């Protein structure tokens, strides 16, 4: 069972706030040129069957809830792979008035794949890295940290001096359930 899951990770793709660049590159991974299926990676539509979640794009006030919801629906253990700079930091859209930032503000991310967009080879590498982490999670039977409820607030207005900005609270407030 353990071996099988790590060798055939099923992937669900969640498009948060992406510009489509990463999405089409991720879809290109599945097509004959790059053929993710030779590694047993299968793309499926529903999070309930998935082991790995691929996130593209930054998170905004509206889709944070959707991302969280989809993450919670996945059976544990689960791995999140963030494709591109958008889910890492917010990328080029980080200044947007409704952009919260990277995917890590909402779900725990295991693998970051840099690039805008990353090449499909890099994406495949990221998924395989995720599969390794998945196998580790299983063998050590590490349970995922208890899921916390998040409350999304608007990002605070940028503070005047950098010291105050560093001291300012993160834009996402987390509360224990």
């Amino acid at each position, binding site marked *: 069972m353990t071996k099988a899951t790590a060798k055939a990770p099923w992937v669900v793709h*969640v*498009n*948060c*706030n*992406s*510009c*489509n*660049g*990463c*999405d*089409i*590159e991720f*879809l*290109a991974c599945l*097509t*004959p*040129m790059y053929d993710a299926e030779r590694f047993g990676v299968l793309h*499926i*539509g*529903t*999070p309930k069957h998935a082991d790995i979640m691929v996130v593209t*794009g*930054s998170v*905004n006030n*509206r*889709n944070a809830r*959707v991302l969280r919801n*989809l993450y919670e629906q996945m059976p544990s253990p689960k791995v999140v792979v963030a494709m591109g700079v958008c889910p890492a930091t917010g990328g*080029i*859209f980080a*200044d*947007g*008035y*409704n*952009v919260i930032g990277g995917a890590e503000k909402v779900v725990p991310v295991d693998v970051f794949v840099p690039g*805008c*967009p990353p*090449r499909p080879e890099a994406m495949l590498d990221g998924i395989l890295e995720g599969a390794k982490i998945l196998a580790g999670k299983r063998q050590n039977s590490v349970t995922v940290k208890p899921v916390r409820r998040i409350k999304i607030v608007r990002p605070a207005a940028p503070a005047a001096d950098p010291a105050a900005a560093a001291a300012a609270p993160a834009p996402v407030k987390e509360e224990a359930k």
Partner: protein
Amino acid sequence: MSTIVPFGPQHPVLPEPIQLCLELEDERVVSVIPVVGYVHRGLEKIAEKKDFIQDTYLIERICGICSFMHSMSYCMGIEELMSIPVPPRALYLRVIWAELHRIHSHLLALGLLADAFGFENLFMQYWKSRERIMDAMECTTGGRVMLSSCCIGGVRRDIDENQKKFVLDQLKEVEKEVTSLNRTMMEDYSVKQRTVGIGVLSKEAAYAQGAVGPTARGSGLVMDHRMSGYAAYRELAIEPVVETAGDCYARTMVRCREVMQSIDLIRRAFAQLPDSELKTPFKGNPSGEAVIRCEQPRGEVLYYFRGNGTDKLERLRVRTPTFANIPAMLTMVQNCQLPDVGVIIISVDPCVSCTER
């Protein structure tokens, strides 16, 4: 009694998050309410924060599928505001990259359509041909999706003889492969069962609801902004591809034929490619107002610019093709059967990340 079924935001047939609340009577769709905002990034506002040269690369990321055409329209607008002449070779190179983008976008859309009606093999085949176009773009610009080769006043890179040969070789292969794939798309019995007569949009409705691009041309409207001759299209003489039936089949046909048309256009552009500088140097900041229209794979895009003499634009407004197509899409979905909703939506080829920016 009717039931409301949410379709999306996460749905296997949708590559992008948009929610459609379908009001159903048994299996028949009575009305549709789109719910948007999942991909909203506030891009127009970010564009006011960055300076107008940085914006070229920001605007490219409105949509990854037609990224080059977005940066091209943006550069055309700034060039108009600042009266920068563009060298002829740059105009031709822009056409070449824009048409490469059109081919890749159409092949992508045809593939997704095949996936929407469950023809996985056809999807894979279309995307396999598409990789050749991606290779051609990578060979000439270094990027597969974000070309970043358009800049204000011209283009940043040239295409040399070797690259030209590579692109033309790839096009030859793509033409061969896509011709045979298109035959399946056009003649296969089971494909026709899913597309002919489904999601009909009459010519009058298309006109009244302001449809653009292949959606309008599939309904018999002769509307292709390339005919107005921006960039080097004036010298290349475009014949718009028009179908009259207005159903999913007609829209698909338009795309199939436009791929061939674009291949032909690139060949002619290469044959006529003039020799000149690649870019005109410029000084100063944009001021005044300008409106630019451009034909993208999904239809006509409209840009509005207002500059105030500083290095930041005062306002940038983008009306993207999918936004114009949404009313038409809602009309098509009405009174269809629930299983056809996916096919109809994909046949319009919506690009949600453009629409919401």
